[in-house]
């Protein structure tokens, strides 16, 4: 289906998308203090956050894999996936009733601050270091897969090497977050993203963009394989 669209056309579409995004950002943006960058001054209306979190959690797996497993005869056959979802509910209840009161009571910006107050310096640094490690590898991996697709369908046709595509992609993300951190993303960028692409197609694509942590965590290798096969068609 993509062959029918020229790389030049796709590039213009992408350019228009980013221009729109940055115009919205410019019109609604503001300079931010550290507190604002980190936690949006703690004043984001909660429905907006719920909206963002749903967007993050309903990913390609929900749209592709979940309907797919219903008729299979292996893991998660029929509606058995609901058993996991019920487990999720318990997990969310634990977060809301046990973890979040601690985070709020200690007035934490970084949740690993808890470990320092409870155990000490080394525990705290270990927790934070592990987060930095797993998040940077995980995020780089997701981005890598998306950039491979962009490179394959669009930028390679203009003679751009891979590193240049990666550099452009990251510069855009950097620009997008540099001013606002959390507040800005929720109020504008994130929100508009969801409005633009809410609908099946968006989620089809999340499938390729996301290596799933949530449920398929145990099957990362399988997931990578699926993504690679899809990326390279």
């Amino acid at each position, binding site marked *: 289906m993509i062959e029918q669209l020229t790389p030049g056309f796709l590039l213009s579409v992408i350019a228009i*998308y980013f221009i729109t995004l940055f115009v919205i950002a410019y019109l609604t943006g503001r300079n931010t203090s550290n507190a604002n960058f980190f936690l949006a001054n703690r004043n984001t209306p909660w429905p907006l956050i719920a909206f963002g979190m749903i967007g993050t959690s309903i990913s390609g797996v*929900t749209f592709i894999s979940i309907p797919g497993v219903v008729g299979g005869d292996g893991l998660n056959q029929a509606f058995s996936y609901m*058993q996991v979802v019920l*487990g999720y509910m318990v997990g*969310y209840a634990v977060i809301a009733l046990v973890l979040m009161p601690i985070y709020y009571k200690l007035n934490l910006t970084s949740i690993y601050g808890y470990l320092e107050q409870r155990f000490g310096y080394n525990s705290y640094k*270990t927790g934070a270091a592990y987060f930095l490690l797993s*998040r940077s590898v995980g995020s780089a991996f997701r981005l890598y897969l998306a950039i491979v697709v962009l490179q394959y369908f669009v930028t390679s046709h203009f003679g751009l090497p891979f590193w240049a595509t990666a550099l452009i992609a990251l510069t855009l993300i950097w620009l997008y977050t*540099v001013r606002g951190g959390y507040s800005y993303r929720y109020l504008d960028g994130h929100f508009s*993203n969801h409005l633009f692409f809410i609908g099946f197609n968006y989620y089809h694509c999340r499938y390729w963009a996301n290596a799933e942590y949530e449920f398929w965590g145990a099957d990362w290798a399988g997931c990578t394989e699926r993504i690679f096969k899809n990326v390279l068609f």
Partner: protein
Amino acid sequence: MNFGELIGLVARSEYSKMFFFEGGWSDPNNFFKQFISGALITITMTGLDQDMMQKNLSCRNLRDAQKNMFTFSITLLVVNVLFLTLGALLYIYASQIGLEIPEKTDYLYPTIAFRHLPPLMGIVFILGLIAATYASSDSALTALTTSFCVDFLNFEKSPESEELKQKKRYYVHIGMTLLLLVLIIIFNIISNEAVISQLFVAAGYTYGPLLGLFAFGILTKRKVRDQWVIPICVASPIISFILDRYSNVLLGGFKFGFLILAANGLLTFLGLWAISYRAEEEKSPYLNN
């Protein structure tokens, strides 16, 4: 067919079976196995993850954050029911039109959807890819920057001026962006699916110690000798990795699946217990504050 009939169709089909108890512990769909995995996945990968929790911490107060969490989880529940129903309908549809089910069932929905969609799909594909990637990458970048500034540069305790900190945050932000860039370029140089996915799996093992640390902190009142925490948190993912890898030999064919996370957390918990002492011994000479 109206909505009620649709629901009836799915409910009567073989696909709507939800609970699996009879297969016992070796059945991958066993209720307890699935249920416990679901809870653990959520607690660690959402509750102990700065990226996911930072969103919640930006609520006005605890009550709002809890409301957010409950709304979010109920919505998620409904959404999942809808998608399973969609799945059942897709299979019923496929059998009606005689469509062969793809070997990888993941492809069923795209196969049906793509066939009826015009080339516009290509545009939406690329834009959707960018939007989806950006939504998760910008949040990760913000969380990484926050964690580094607060956890390693001690932003909240240091007496430095707000101006200087903003400048530092700016550089950390650039640094994190560069870190991601370097990692991406390394992935591209490796270009080996198996190696990259192993790296990714290894990164996932870091959730075990976090689970152990938080569980020990919340469930017990004991204190730990802090200087021993690092070796324990390094050892338990490594031991878990070996356990999982060689569970065939070591544990007579038992497959951990997702429960390796629980094992990993438990190892950390036991390790912490070994280096712990009762809170009253606060003046112990071994105490390292």
